[in-house]
């Protein structure tokens, strides 16, 4: 089995290095095909491992080699395949394989084709390290690795100012969170003496609560960055500057869920500190509705989907925070499938529309792009949580968990968000595929994507439909060997049915409202004049609550100004000037006293005499002082010195 573990882990790396070999030469198909095949290998190995874990109900733990060893610290490159990590491995390799194949078509005309696959496969490798590592340091390797690849892929089209800016923003914001994570790791090390999961978590029980709370908070700060939770969320929407397959893989299905994975992985820690868990859940619920509101008005399909990702991450954190770790993981999995599908569909639309992203400029695309329409619609249905698609099972469970635990505010917020989700998802579906044709007038000639891209997407479609009702039971069985097996059942049947059906009705009503509102023939490309666009609400939402503006104005700008002040005013004018001042003091003294050296013998003799007198008087003073030293001491002590 170890062989399969290493194959699963390292074949993306091999693929990445293979593509990197060609990264500076002209486009070759092989740079895309070989990494895709290798990912297929990785997927197969992961599947074998999954069946191994399922079949034997045991876990696989290997230690490849030592990484760091000094003092009491020992960190190996160790990997573990257990129920949780194998789930993540399956999600990661599956979505990656699909996205790789899809990207061969999507990036077809791009000059950086080879480079793209090098980065993309490197990302998969980092992600595999992240989920498979058996210690926090290894997790941190993957954590930073995915950050690096995300940087490279968001800024993939590096000629674009906005893309590189977004890449740097994402990296730096993640770094802020990584500091929190690092501090969490330090705390763990100094309190438990190790970073291995299997040593750390059992040791947690003996620590005092304050320490645990701090560890929990710092680790969660790390998770907040990667999973783009408020207030570190702005990078995710800007990250949509990257190519769409990247958005599908990194910024929807895998990397952003790393934070959720971390919380799930540390469940034994968070179980000991329910207050922090409640905070996580509350923040999750807040982010869910916060992001959903921003998605309501946005006029960029990728950003809408990005906000919906953010919102769904909020759901996952809400579940994880409430202790429903397996539910969070389940939603993570289901979400990965339908959200990646949604993004890839959006990629098809972008391709057809020459990278136009404003859905108001589309309309009626359903005629030419039937398959894309079907896929995106089904993905949106899954996202909205309609029976029997994947989202229903996972999302409904989160709602139930909140309800059963009597966190009614969280429940209410999440319920409301479910309605909003349905509305904005179908708002863009309606705008893109239905209604009047608005794009021909603008000079677009849409066409359906390559067949193999659609075929590549089909596994995701299948999973988005069936993964809910097919896997729920088995998944629960599997992961609860590791995670707390809390079942969330509302014991009162009547309440259960009212709740479930009520939710469904509410969501379906939202969908119909969205269709009705945005399919009407008098939808025009907004020009900023309508009353709605003038309203404060709209402005607040379209400007993302002015948070990016706030960051730019009150964090980035002062930082830049302060840096300039530090350099020009303090470093040059104070610190360096002091040094030069001391040096100059010598120079000026010398310059001024050289006048003494007039060369005139008479003057020199006068100086000589003055010096003689000075020395003689000093001699007299010291002589007297030495003779009368006793009485001087008495006098001084009398003065109180």
């Amino acid at each position, binding site marked *: 089995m170890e062989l399969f573990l290493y194959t699963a882990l390292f074949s993306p790396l091999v693929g990445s290095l293979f593509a990197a070999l060609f990264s500076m030469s002209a486009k070759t198909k092989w740079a895309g095909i070989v990494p895709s095949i290798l990912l297929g290998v990785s997927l197969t190995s992961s599947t074998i491992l999954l069946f191994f874990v399922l079949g034997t109900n045991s876990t696989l733990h290997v230690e490849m080699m030592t990484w760091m060893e000094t003092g009491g610290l020992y960190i190996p490159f160790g990997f573990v395949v257990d129920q949780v990590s194998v789930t993540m491995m399956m999600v990661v390799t599956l979505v990656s394989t699909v996205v790789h194949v899809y990207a061969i078509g999507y990036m077809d005309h791009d000059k950086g084709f080879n480079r793209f696959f090098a980065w993309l496969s490197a990302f998969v490798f980092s992600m595999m390290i992240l989920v498979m590592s058996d210690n926090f340091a290894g997790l941190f390797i993957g954590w930073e690795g995915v950050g690096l690849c995300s940087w490279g892929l968001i800024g993939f089209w590096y000629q674009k100012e906005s893309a590189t800016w977004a890449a740097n923003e994402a990296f730096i914001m993640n770094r802020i969170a990584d500091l929190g994570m690092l501090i969490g790791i330090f705390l763990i090390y100094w309190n438990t003496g190790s970073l291995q999961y299997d040593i750390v978590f059992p040791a947690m029980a003996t620590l005092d609560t304050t320490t645990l709370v701090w560890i929990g908070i710092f680790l969660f700060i790390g998770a907040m960055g990667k999973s783009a939770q408020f207030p570190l969320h702005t990078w995710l929407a800007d990250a949509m500057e990257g190519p769409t397959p990247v958005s599908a893989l990194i910024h929807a299905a895998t990397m952003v869920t790393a934070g959720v994975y971390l919380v799930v992985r540390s469940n034994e820690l968070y179980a000991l500190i329910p207050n922090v868990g409640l905070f996580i859940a509350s923040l999750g619920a807040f982010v869910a509705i916060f992001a959903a509101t921003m998605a309501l008005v946005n006029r960029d399909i990728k950003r809408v989907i990005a906000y919906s990702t953010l919102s769904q991450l909020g759901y996952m954190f809400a579940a994880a925070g409430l202790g429903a770790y397996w539910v969070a993981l389940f939603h993570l999995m289901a979400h990965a499938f339908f959200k990646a599908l949604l993004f890839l569909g959006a990629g098809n639309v972008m391709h057809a529309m020459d990278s136009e992203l404003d859905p108001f400029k589309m309309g009626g695309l359903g005629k030419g792009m039937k398959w894309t329409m079907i896929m995106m619609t089904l993905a949106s249905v899954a996202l909205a949580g309609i029976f029997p698609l994947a989202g229903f099972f996972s999302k409904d469970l989160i709602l139930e968990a909140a309800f059963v635990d009597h966190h009614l505010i969280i429940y209410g917020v999440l319920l409301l968000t479910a309605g909003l989700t349905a509305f904005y998802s179908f708002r863009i579906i309606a705008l893109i595929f239905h209604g009047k044709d608005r794009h021909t007038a603008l000079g677009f000639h849409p066409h359906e994507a390559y067949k193999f891209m659609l075929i590549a997407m089909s596994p995701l479609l299948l999973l988005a439909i069936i993964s809910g009702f097919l896997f729920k039971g088995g998944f629960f069985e599997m992961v609860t060997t590791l995670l707390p097996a809390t079942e969330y059942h509302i014991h009162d049947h009547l309440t259960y049915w009212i709740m479930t059906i009520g939710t469904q009705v509410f969501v379906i009503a939202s969908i119909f409202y969205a269709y009705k509102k945005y399919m009407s023939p008098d939808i025009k490309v907004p020009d900023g004049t309508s009353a709605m666009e003038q309203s404060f609400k709209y402005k607040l939402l379209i400007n993302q609550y002015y948070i990016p503006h706030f960051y730019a104005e009150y964090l980035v700008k002062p930082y830049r100004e302060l840096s300039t002040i530090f350099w020009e005013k303090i470093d040059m004018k104070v610190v360096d000037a002091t040094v030069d001042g001391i040096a100059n003091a010598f120079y000026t003294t010398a310059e001024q006293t050289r006048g*003494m*050296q*007039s060369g*005139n*013998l*008479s003057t020199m003799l006068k100086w000589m*005499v003055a010096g003689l007198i000075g020395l003689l008087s000093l001699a007299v003073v010291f002589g007297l002082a030495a003779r009368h030293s006793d009485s001087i001491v008495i006098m001084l002590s009398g003065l109180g010195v």
Partner: protein
Amino acid sequence: MEIGLNHYLVLSTILFSIGLVGVMRRKNLLMLFFATEILLNSVNIAFAAISHYYGDLTGQMFAFFVIAIAASEVAVGLGLLIVWHKRYNNIDLDYLNTMKG
């Protein structure tokens, strides 16, 4: 009144002061040499007197040394002075400023 050590020392001091003032005030190089001689001889008087007072001949020996050195110094000095006078036709100190820093 017997002439004691103090009288000699006072004389020496007076001569030294005269020499010192001369060294400081005189602009003529020749006069400067005279002033230096006065300085040296004032010291010689002090040496001789103290030597006599302690009954130790070292001081008087030292005075001879000083006289000898002073003589050679004046010889060299006067030689330079004459060369200088021949070249520049004056021996005013204010013109001797090639050592300006």
